């Protein structure tokens, strides 16, 4: 009968360091499957962030660069401008992309740089031990918001997909989730679409993935999925915010 389910070639055999119930593993796998299906492993360069996924390069089997915190979109710009034939993606968490890296992602998106960003939104800083993120929910307790996020003090959480969608140029912006199979199926489609747009040299593509962090939420993996579904997804709504067909002007469709 043969194998019907196997490890993607783009995923390495190394056991990951991620926590039980962490959805980085799912996100990595989806990216690897898409890379295999599109046959682009030999010309893909990934850019790892600073965060829990700082060692992401250990889990993939193609060229990788390690970026400074938040700077991956700038590095991706450098690569894509000098080697437009390479397929380039950044893989970033909420501290990396929405805090220190906010300038870089907005400008790369606004210039319409033809790379793909996979944005892991789990409403907290994972690697450094659970501090507040720009995406932390109102009232959510973290190690730097021990009384719960006080929106009167630090404002409401940032909806990055909506923020980037306010720019005219970036053409594929979508938010999906990887917390349950019904969401994962759509997430994979979105990731594949994003990479396909890149192969067409069509536009900047952005896939936000609502994810879990049981360890820093202080919940079990099962409780974490429930909390994400009940609290995160109503706020971070899922769906396509922008697709290339909607974008007028045609500057992206090169």
């Amino acid at each position, binding site marked *: 009968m043969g194998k019907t389910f196997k490890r993607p070639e783009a995923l390495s055999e190394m056991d990951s360091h991620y926590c039980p119930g962490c959805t980085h593993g799912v996100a990595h796998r989806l990216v690897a499957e898409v890379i295999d299906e599109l046959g682009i492993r030999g010309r893909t360069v990934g850019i790892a962030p600073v965060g829990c996924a700082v060692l992401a390069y250990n889990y993939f089997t193609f060229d990788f660069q390690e970026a400074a915190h938040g700077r991956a979109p*700038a590095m991706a710009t*450098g690569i894509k*401008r000098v080697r437009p034939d390479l397929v380039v993606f950044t893989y970033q968490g909420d501290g990396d992309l929405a805090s220190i890296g906010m300038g870089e992602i907005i400008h790369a998106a606004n210039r319409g740089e033809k790379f793909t960003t996979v944005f892991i939104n789990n409403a907290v800083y994972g690697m450094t031990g659970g501090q507040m993120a720009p995406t932390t929910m109102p009232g959510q307790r973290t190690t730097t918001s021990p009384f719960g996020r006080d929106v009167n003090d630090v404002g409401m959480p940032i909806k990055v997909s909506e923020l980037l969608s306010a720019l005219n140029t970036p053409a594929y912006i979508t938010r999906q989730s990887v917390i349950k199979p019904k969401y994962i199926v759509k997430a994979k489609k979105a990731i594949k679409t994003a990479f396909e747009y890149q192969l067409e040299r069509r536009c900047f593509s952005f896939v936000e993935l609502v994810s879990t962090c049981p360890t820093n939420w202080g919940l079990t993996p099962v409780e974490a999925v429930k909390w994400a579904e009940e609290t995160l997804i109503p706020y971070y709504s899922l769906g396509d915010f922008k697709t290339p067909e909607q974008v007028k002007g045609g500057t992206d469709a090169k």
Partner: protein
Amino acid sequence: MGKILMKGNEAIGEAGIRAGCLNYFAYPITPQSEVAEYLSHRMPEVGGVFLQGESEVAVGYMIFGAAACGERVFTTSSSPGISLMSEAISYIAGAQCPAVFVNIMRGGPGLGGILPSQADYFQATKGGGHGDYRLLVMAPASVQEAVEMVMAAFPLAEKYRNPVMILGDGLIGQMMEPVEFPEHLKSEPSNKDDWATNGMDTRKSKKRNLVKSLFLDPVKLNEHNLILKAKYDRMKCEEVRYEPYNADSDYRILIVSYGTMSRVCKTAVDNLKAEGIDVGMIRPQTLFPFPEEAVFQAASKKSCRMALSIEMSMGQMVEDVERCVHGKCPVRWYGKCGGEVPTPEEIMDVVRSYLP
């Protein structure tokens, strides 16, 4: 080809292209914005890449990404912008990628001023960014020399897999001088397939490349730092460049000066010689590696009573001069900041003040 009259900034931009570097990312900052303005139309002419990034922080990482793919790439900036790029420079050195940075120095610290200075000597030679890394630093004293050093910088960056910095100042950037461009650099075989993330297909290899500076295992990080140190030690053996001036005479005072300041000092030396006073000079052309042996030998001359470091700063290179002279004679400093360039007459007065 003959000489062309060119503004320093534009010549520096053109030098990159003549060196076979067709990739330039930059951010405007006085007094070097003309490099970006020039390359914004010149790069497309030669089929190169030009991009104005959103900040020097971003530009530093665009340089890193492109360099990590094995492509020649450079940027130009000025003091506050170089501070912003310093983290990226540390990363690029840690990840062992070649890249060329040009600092057209202006007055500091902070927002400072827009006129020339030499106040980034420490930043360039002692590491503006964090960690145990060094830059190969070259200091031109003319537009012609700036062109030659920019062109030499690329093969040097690749030889050492390390960033190289050209330390100029606002005068070099803004003035116009005759320039003759050397022959276009021939592209040399490079080892980039050994390390660059240029795609496994490009390398026809099944082995992937990883560009990183993270080594969580302290044993491995120590080994890595030893590898970096070995490169810097090799630079000290192979890349020292300096120019002696009137150094065969029986001088009582030895001037050490670089860049624009050294030209003013040369005029002072010539004028004093006409008055019968001999002053010797060593002009470092590499600030790292510093011409330690040359300065020591020059200060050890029987006639030499004092070494005088003359810089447009509050005294930075003087510490290296002191270190190299090993107490052979007293070491003093003279300088001005804020964008004020000392005149030859001023230098002559300073020299006379130290002579009985």
